[in-house]
């Protein structure tokens, strides 16, 4: 122990200084061990950063293109002969024409486009050209006609989504070479797409639909969006916040400030820590058994997801809350009690406000963890194909919805390659939400935390 101070003093001196200190073998060995340890640390951090960048890089590389999308603007003649044969404009009769009946209108719109000498590829019929447009197109047309039956017989300008393969062509996923082998797209269609782009009919724009649209079937990956998943995740977070925060805080205040210290509270304490380490899938099984099979709550509903995630988040919140309650110095409590405050007044007027930033931070981190949780949701039917938006709360809590992480899982299993891009895009959205939540937690801590 004696050479500790001497070696420390010698460290800043370079080889040029005329120190009288001669390091003995033992000191050199210990210094070498220290620098080796530092090296290991640097290597560990370098590996971690490299892994992080590789992960972020691949997600951004694959997913950023999902925020851009090819759109085609067409003038569609809403042919009364096809949509309203009797000319009565009777909504019920117009509604009888299914989405499949609207597809010829788009082909007809291409036929008019082909009158332009600049546009048209030999051997490509208007019907095949219409395949440039997403299958969502006829559905959009039908919605529009049902909302504005007076427009039948007029020519209306529409902005359609381009089909997944055409969209992929401008994102490098589809090339002329692969189009030759691909059953779903032909090189002629790609040539036509290039002509349309030249003419300004086809444009690549920011894809707001990715955030607002509902999920779509495998026939139209270009129309798939995260709207239902974002709303579903949001509803679940509301449920978690409304349940986990009050229960968690009440439990921790009682355990920390009021409960007697005996073996029962010891057991509770140990179990709370254990609960935090329970694999999340277990909560899913529990949720399926209790909330769906026993309590009869509906499947795929945000309320069940929220309840399951509440169980999962509770230990995190309780542990964080107890830690921040413990961090409030006893002198605060003593002073409050000393001037005649009751125990409850001391806790609620003095201790809790001081612990609040820590509690909020813990809660937000718990919520962020719950937001990214997938496994328990798979068991309670949240992995379903849900296309209708849930209604406003409180009824909306019982409507079927998806959730962000399960939407990612869902999309990676689809066969159309366009969904790979969508899945990575969904990961980006999820990560942005997590980053925002963590940033709020950091700001709260910085702003309001008091140190003693």
């Amino acid at each position, binding site marked *: 122990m004696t050479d500790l101070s001497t070696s420390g003093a010698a460290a800043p001196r370079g080889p040029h200084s005329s120190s009288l200190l001669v390091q003995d073998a033992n000191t050199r060995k210990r210094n070498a061990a220290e620098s080796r340890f530092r090296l290991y640390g640097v290597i560990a951090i370098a590996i971690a950063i490299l892994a992080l960048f590789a992960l972020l890089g691949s997600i951004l590389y694959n997913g950023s293109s999902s925020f851009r999308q090819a759109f085609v603007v067409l003038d569609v003649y809403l042919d009364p002969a096809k949509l309203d044969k009797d000319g009565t404009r009777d909504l019920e009769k117009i509604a009888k024409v299914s*989405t499949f009946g609207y597809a010829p209108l788009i082909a007809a719109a291409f036929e008019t486009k082909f009158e332009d000498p600049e546009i048209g590829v030999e051997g490509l019929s208007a019907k095949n050209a219409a395949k440039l447009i997403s299958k969502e197109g006829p559905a959009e047309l039908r919605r529009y006609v049902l909302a504005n039956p007076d427009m039948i017989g007029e020519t209306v300008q529409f902005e359609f989504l381009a089909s997944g393969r055409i969209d992929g062509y401008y994102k490098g996923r589809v090339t002329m070479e*692969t189009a030759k082998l691909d059953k779903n797209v032909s090189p002629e269609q790609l040539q036509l797409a290039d002509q349309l782009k030249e003419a300004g009919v086809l444009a690549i724009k920011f894809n707001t639909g990715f955030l607002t649209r509902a999920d779509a079937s495998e026939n139209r990956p270009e129309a798939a969006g995260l709207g239902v998943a974002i709303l579903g995740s949001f509803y679940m977070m509301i449920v978690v916040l409304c349940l986990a925060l009050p229960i968690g805080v009440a439990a921790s205040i009682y355990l920390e400030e009021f409960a007697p210290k005996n073996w029962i509270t010891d057991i509770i304490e140990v179990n709370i820590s254990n609960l935090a380490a329970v694999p999340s899938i277990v909560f899913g099984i529990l949720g399926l058994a209790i909330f769906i099979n026993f309590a009869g709550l509906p499947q795929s509903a945000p309320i069940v997801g929220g309840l399951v995630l509440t169980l999962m988040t509770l230990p995190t919140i309780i542990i964080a809350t107890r830690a921040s309650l413990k961090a409030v110095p006893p002198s605060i409590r003593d002073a409050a009690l000393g001037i005649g405050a009751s125990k409850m007044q001391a806790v609620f007027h003095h201790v809790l406000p001081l612990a609040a930033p820590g509690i909020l931070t813990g809660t937000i981190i718990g919520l962020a963890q719950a937001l990214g949780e997938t496994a328990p949701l798979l068991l309670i039917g949240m992995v379903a*194909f849900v296309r209708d938006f849930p209604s406003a709360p409180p009824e909306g809590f019982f409507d079927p919805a998806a959730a962000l992480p399960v939407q990612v899982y869902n999309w990676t299993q689809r*066969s159309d390659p366009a969904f790979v891009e969508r899945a990575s895009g969904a990961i980006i959205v999820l990560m942005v939400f997590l980053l925002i939540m963590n940033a709020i937690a950091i700001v709260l801590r910085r702003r309001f935390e008091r140190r003693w």
Partner: protein
Amino acid sequence: MSFVKLTASALAIAAVSATTASARDQIQVAGSSTVLPYATIVAEAFGENFDFPTPVVEGGGSGAGRKKMCEGVGENTIDIADSSSRIKQSDIDLCASNGVNEIMEVRIGYDGIVFASDINGAEFVFTPADWYNALAAKVMVDGKLVDNTNKTWADVNAALPAQDILAFIPGTKHGTREVFDVKVLEAGCESTGAEEAYKAMGDEKAKGCTALRTDGVSIDIDGDYTETLARLTANPQAIGVFGLSFYENNTDKLRVATMGGIVPSTESIATGEYPVSRPLFFYVKKAHLGVIPGLQEYIDFFVSDEIAGPDGPLAAYGLVSDPELAKTQEMVAAGTAMGPLN
């Protein structure tokens, strides 16, 4: 704090009241991941063209879907189970014990199973016997059953390329594996004479036919076809087993092999020339008809010519439409429950 408490108690009250009075107005479907894409296409079109909400469709596997359907009658059980294999007697018994007595069996069409390699690899012309000789644990050599030591496809059949045998086949929990076992391995077992040999050894049902070698040339994929494709991209020498619709969506990455000289296509499967195919079903709980709004309309819509016919969107996606669709339509319209399994 009081605000939070108020919200929490309000939520709890809402939860309790809604539990007692919740009426489900959307159809719930679960089951086979092979049928899932077709079911979502139909659900999407149904939601667009009818005044009913879009059905909620879940995957999870054929067996899991049938079990869920058999959990009982009531709004918190599903209405329809998708299945890529026929319902089993054990499912029917489970259903009956939970009060689900009448089930409608609806065959929506056929699905082909294709064998494909990397697009840049060699071409393959397979017969079931080739697959049996490549993957089975024991093969016939000079009239005797011996351990399989074939290393390359050329060892199996001189007409095939001298490429190491490596096959990604569906795991045992998949419905696809059952078809692979029956239509490829058992067929190959029979044609090579190994079945006779097994029977001669006292294995009455020739169970040895579906025993695969365990030295790593056949790899079970428990995930879905996207995983098989990813593994294939990493190992361009390998051969993967896919559904026809998956292949049709990835024709730019995969080269399909013929089986018994027949190229798999919706046509060759419809005519029955291509041997490795199977029917796809969904099962409807009859007790829910008339209770869940839109259920009858949904199943009518599913089997209509517009959807399941040869020019419909399902066929465009890769379903081989059923030549006997008209019969199915009649059956669905009449609401005939299935009889006992034969």
